[in-house]
């Protein structure tokens, strides 16, 4: 199910069906048992009245007066019946209403105990019957047993129950429908901000809008803010790419022009050398532009936490192969749980260039330590990366020039310092810096510090 409102409506309907179902069953049961109780009480009343009306005749039998207190006993088909049997089960008396029917015999009660039964007439009409066995004193000291039985047709009672059920279902159905309708109306109102976000994103895609308006309910402001950040960083990124591409294209034109010029008035002796020079220059330009930082600290949302130790191990294994002949001692210390928040390619670019330079220039020893910058912990994303070697080192007055190279590539001499310029630029794009100093090993020390965000 992809629609939030469909999901909610279906869940609510299921819940409503469950709760209303339970309520209907409970109400129905309660109503029915109350009705049955009332019915039994009424039958009991009739029975008591019959007992009171019965009299012993002179012939020594029990007799009923012809006019009973309840006129329904006298009307045929009234639905209220009574009869009296002797101990053999022979009918001694039956009410006028029962003359045309045969009452079911049913179970026989024990003496003195009321027996309620649900029975049926021959035509299937349901009955509630009450039987009572009594010992009647015919003469002094002479008791004879009789069974009194009254029965009431349940037709009207069942009709009542059915009526009640119809009403119950009707009302609950109406209430459920009204609830579902109002919930779906509410949903439409509540989901309107989402639809608004969708529309605004559509407008951004079409270029009609710069960013999301920001007029959203509290629950959505976070989403909208992050969306805006993402849009901004995407835009910044594509700007960066455009600028890079622009620079690349323009800076390649100069050497291309030079090569064309060489082709027209090339001095054949120096031709190949000068041609090569231009190729080198173009290579440097492409190299520099392609190695620019992939991300920057402004790209907050797009950055991942790079597991530093793992990347360093891969890098050092690779460099050991490349510098197999020189076989420098590469020492690495990485703080436990060290994570760099950024692009893993950028991290490798920093560590790779510095470590490669150190391996190139060292006598024998190279050392790299990576730990969190002062005042932050190793998982925070910032880092201080220090690479030192025991090579000749870099004179203090040359460091500035070294770092400047590559940054204004059109005007620089090719061949040197691209790696360092790249490291510096990546560090700066993450809000950090590159510092060159003297190492305690005797050579140069390069320290890149990138703050935690």
């Amino acid at each position, binding site marked *: 199910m992809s629609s939030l409102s469909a999901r909610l409506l279906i869940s609510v309907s299921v819940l409503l069906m469950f709760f209303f179902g339970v309520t209907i069953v409970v109400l129905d049961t309660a109503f029915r048992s109350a009705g049955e109780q009332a019915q039994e009480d009424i039958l009991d009343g009739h029975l008591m009245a019959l007992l009171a009306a019965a009299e012993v005749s002179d012939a020594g039998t029990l007799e009923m007066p012809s006019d009973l207190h309840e006129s329904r006993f006298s009307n045929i088909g009234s639905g209220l019946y009574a009869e009296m049997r002797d101990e053999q089960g022979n009918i001694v008396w039956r009410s006028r209403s029962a003359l045309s029917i045969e009452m079911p015999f049913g179970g026989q009660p024990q003496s003195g105990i009321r027996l309620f039964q649900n029975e049926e007439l021959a035509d299937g009409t349901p009955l509630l019957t009450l039987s009572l066995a009594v010992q009647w004193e015919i003469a002094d000291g002479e008791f004879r047993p009789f069974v009194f039985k009254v029965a009431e047709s349940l037709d009207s009672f069942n009709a009542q129950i059915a009526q009640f059920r119809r009403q119950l279902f009707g009302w609950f159905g109406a209430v459920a429908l009204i609830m579902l309708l109002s919930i779906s109306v509410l949903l439409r109102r509540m989901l309107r901000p989402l639809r608004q976000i969708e529309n605004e994103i559509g407008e951004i895609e079409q270029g009609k809008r710069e960013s999301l308006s920001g007029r959203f309910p509290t629950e959505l402001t976070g989403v909208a803010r992050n969306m805006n950040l993402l849009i901004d960083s995407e835009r910044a990124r594509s700007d960066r790419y455009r600028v890079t591409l622009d620079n690349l294209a323009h800076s390649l034109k100069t050497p291309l022009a030079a090569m064309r010029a060489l082709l027209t008035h090339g001095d054949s002796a120096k031709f190949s050398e000068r041609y090569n020079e231009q190729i080198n220059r173009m290579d440097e330009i492409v190299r520099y532009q392609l190695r620019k930082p992939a991300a920057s600290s402004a790209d907050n949302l797009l950055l991942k936490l790079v597991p530093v130790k793992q990347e360093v191990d891969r890098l050092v294994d690779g460099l050991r192969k490349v510098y197999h002949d020189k076989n420098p001692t590469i020492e690495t210390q990485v703080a436990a749980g060290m994570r760099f928040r950024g692009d893993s390619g950028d991290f490798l670019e920093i560590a*790779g260039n510095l470590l490669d330079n150190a391996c190139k220039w060292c006598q024998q020893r190279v050392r790299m330590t990576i730990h969190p910058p002062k005042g932050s912990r190793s998982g925070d994303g910032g880092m201080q990366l220090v690479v030192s070697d025991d090579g000749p080192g870099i004179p203090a007055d040359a460091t500035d020039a070294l770092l400047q190279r590559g940054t204004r590539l059109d005007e620089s001499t090719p061949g040197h310092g691209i790696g360092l310029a790249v490291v510096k630029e990546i560090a700066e794009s993450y809000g950090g810096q590159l510092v060159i100093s003297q190492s305690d090993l005797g050579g140069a020390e390069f320290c890149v510090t990138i703050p935690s965000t």
Partner: protein
Amino acid sequence: MRLLVIEDDATLRESLAAKLGENGFAVEQAADGKEGLYYALEYPIDLAIVDLGLPEMSGLDIIRKVREEGRTYPILILTARDRWEDKVDGLDAGADDYVVKPFHVEEVTARVNALLRRSGGWASSLMTAGPVTLDMSRQELSVNDSIIDLTSFEYKIIEYLMVRAGQVISKTELTERLYDQDFERDSNVIEVFIGRLRKKMDPDNSIKPIETLRGRGYRFALERGQSG
């Protein structure tokens, strides 16, 4: 020695192969990844030069597959991708060194020589054993500091034997690794060349650089020098 060059750009591949041929190597060429992998697994190869961006199958996959199949010969990557991420991925997959495009062909031959030396267990660029010194970059053999004048095939043989100094090399292996693909193969030719080599390097039969093991092959018998 037999090299394999897998590179899809024809100009680059052919000029590289030509240059390597000049340097005394037999060279197989493959223009795409699948063909390259076939050569890499089925041919007797001493070193492979693999471009990373290939049609059909990437260079990285070829390297992984070759290493998975247990081949240990050195692999040199050619790559247009300059970021450390890509270099590390290649080395991690099992390559031994990389050259970034655009390169000078001399750069590639130098790396190839170094890798071959390294695979034979030599650490320095000059291989010295007793009075014999071999300089792979100049293709020069000298005995007692005087350069011996060798034909290119004689040089190929002594280079192959000396890189693998101490190992027994069969005649079949020599013919397989040294001749170009469609050359008429005849192992008697090898015997003739070995005889000439012995005469040129050791005219008075005093240092005995090449040992014959009957029925098994030849061995460069001199102890490797200090640097080796």
